[in-house]
Each structure stands twice: as C-alpha cells, then as structure tokens.
C-alpha cells in the first residue's frame, strides 16, 4: 500500500528506506517519521523523546498522535500475524514480488507461511 499510495499522490518512493535508514524514502518528512517509528519500537527513551519532539515540530501535534496510533496498530497486527502464521492475500503477493527480494522480505521467517512452494 505504500507504493500505491505514493504513486496515487503523483510521487515516487524509494522502498530501500524501509530497511536502510541512510536512504531517503522521497516522502515528505520521511526521515522524521521513520525515526519516530524506530524509537517507539526501540529501547532508548531519550531517543524517543527527541523523535517525538521532532515529529511534533515538523508536522503537528495531531500528526504525532496519528503516527503513534499507526505504529501501535501495526505492532499489534505483526504480533498476531507472526504468531498465528496467516497467509498474505494473493493480490498482495503478486504486487510485491519485485521489491520483496530486493529488500530481503522473502527471507523473513514469517515469509514461509505464504511462500510455501
């Protein structure tokens, strides 16, 4: 959905930013958002405090709340998906084949639930 939403908005995204923080995603304030996601999931409270302030300043207090909601929601979904071995829908498997290999996604342990043969 990331690539589709960016292309819908008339832009381009460098998906390598998802696995390499040195890469610019091409999305406005992408670095600030990625830093916030990493810090919220991570263990350093001081880094999180800075990331939170940066996001609020760069975007808005409302964006900070919504970003926290998105990060938390996917932390939930990822736990349920990985712990229960659900299968990715075929339309998304087909639509992601070109970048999964490049980003190493096909090597995730959870990939075997979908890529069985």
């Amino acid at each position, binding site marked *: 959905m990331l690539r589709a939403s960016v292309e819908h908005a008339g832009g381009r995204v460098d998906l390598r930013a998802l696995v390499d923080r040195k890469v610019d995603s091409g999305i406005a304030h992408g670095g600030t958002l990625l830093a916030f996601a*990493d810090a919220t999931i991570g263990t350093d409270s001081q880094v999180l405090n800075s990331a939170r302030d940066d996001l609020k300043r760069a975007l808005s207090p409302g964006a900070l709340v919504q970003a926290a909601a998105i990060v938390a929601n996917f932390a939930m979904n*990822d736990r349920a998906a*990985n712990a229960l*071995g659900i299968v990715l829908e075929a339309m998304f498997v087909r639509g992601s084949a070109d970048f999964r290999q490049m980003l190493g996604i096909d090597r*995730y342990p959870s990939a075997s*639930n979908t890529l069985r043969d």
Partner: protein
Amino acid sequence: MRLYSDSELPVRPALEVAHGTTLASFAGPGSWYNGAERCEIVREARQARTSAGLQDDGGDEPVYADLSPVARRVARRVAISVDTLTRDFMEEALADGLSVDEYVEVVGVVSRAVNVDLFARGLGLPVRPLPLPTDQAPVRLRPSTACDEGAWVPTVPGGSRGGEEARRIYGSADPQAAPFIYRALSLCPDEAAGLVALGAAQYLEIKDFMDLDFTYEPTLSRPQYELLAARVSALHQCFY
C-alpha cells in the same frame, strides 16, 4: 474521565473509546480465560516489556491470578520478540499443554495490550491502568464455522461461509471485509473483533482501505501512514 486526560495532545475521541473498550475487555471473560487470568496475561507481557526496556513502566501490579508457565512463556515471547514467533514455537507451547484456543487468546490479549501500551509510550504517557477483573466465567465455546484456511490455527472465514459469527466479528457479510489479519484471532471471536475495532480507530476502516486519499489526520498523509506501517512491519520481520 477521559482515558488520555493527562495528555496535552489532541487524542481523537474514537481512540479514547477504542482503548478504553480494549482495557475493559481484558478485565472481562474471554473465550477460555476469565478476567483475572486475562489481566495476569497483560501483567506478564508488561513486565517482560519493561524488563527488556521496551516500555518505561507497567507490570508492577500485584498478581491477578495463577497462570500456567507455558501461558506466561507465550505472553512474554509475543510481547518482546515478534520476529522469533515461528511455528515451532507454537507447537512447543501446544506440546507443553496449552490448547490451540488458549494459545490464540494469549496472542490476542498480548497483541492488543502492546498496542495500547505502545500508543501511550509514543505520546510520552505512562501505561493505562487495568480495570478490576470481573468474576464472570469464560465462554468456553469455539466458533462452529472455524476451519483450516491456511494459517497455523483454524479461522472463521469471511462472508457466508463464516455465518453469523463472521458478521459479528468482521461487521459485514462481505468476504472482502475480512482480510486474513482480521481472521487471524477469530478462533477467539472477541479477540478478533477487538483487533478489528482497534484497526478501524487507529489506521482505517476496511471500507476506506482502497481510498488512497484517506487519512484521519489532515497533517499526516496516506503515504506517510503507510511509511510508518511498513517500517514497523520491517522491524518485526512481518511478511504479512
């Protein structure tokens, strides 16, 4: 009192309602565990996350209930180590005496608890306290339409195959309204319905999924939404 009244940030009412409902659900009966046991599952998960440095507080409440060692082990692992949740891990838990239904319920409770706790952490707030557990007994009923749909555990199909249970869990009789992430926890219907409700409040409702302009917050675009979502899933090595 509002759940996030201690925050100066503009938390949408829908988030407050969804999170308040989630916390209350832990204190009430589930499919296989009672409220005290479900609160103990949350306490175990919080304690593990605090010990691992993944959150700053939580887990220091008094013990709510006895819980089997294997249920505690599953709660801790799901709470802190998302990328290591393999089928072997689940099979070991089942071999050690957890039923598949109980396994699903522990996964559901922990996943939803981490969600609510991580939201608070993201805003710089302490974890929200749990309500006092009720003394109602668990339902102890597996949904009759649960079947093998390719996951490690039985799930309730969307649409007519899922019957009335599907309509209740997914909020629609349309099979398109039940992507696999919604069905994952459906062996314990209230856990699945809880995940769906949180997703609708925090991310989007399924009807808005293909509306690529959709956003709850005008200063955060849909591509920015999706960048956050994709990064979290990459950090967790979640293929889905």
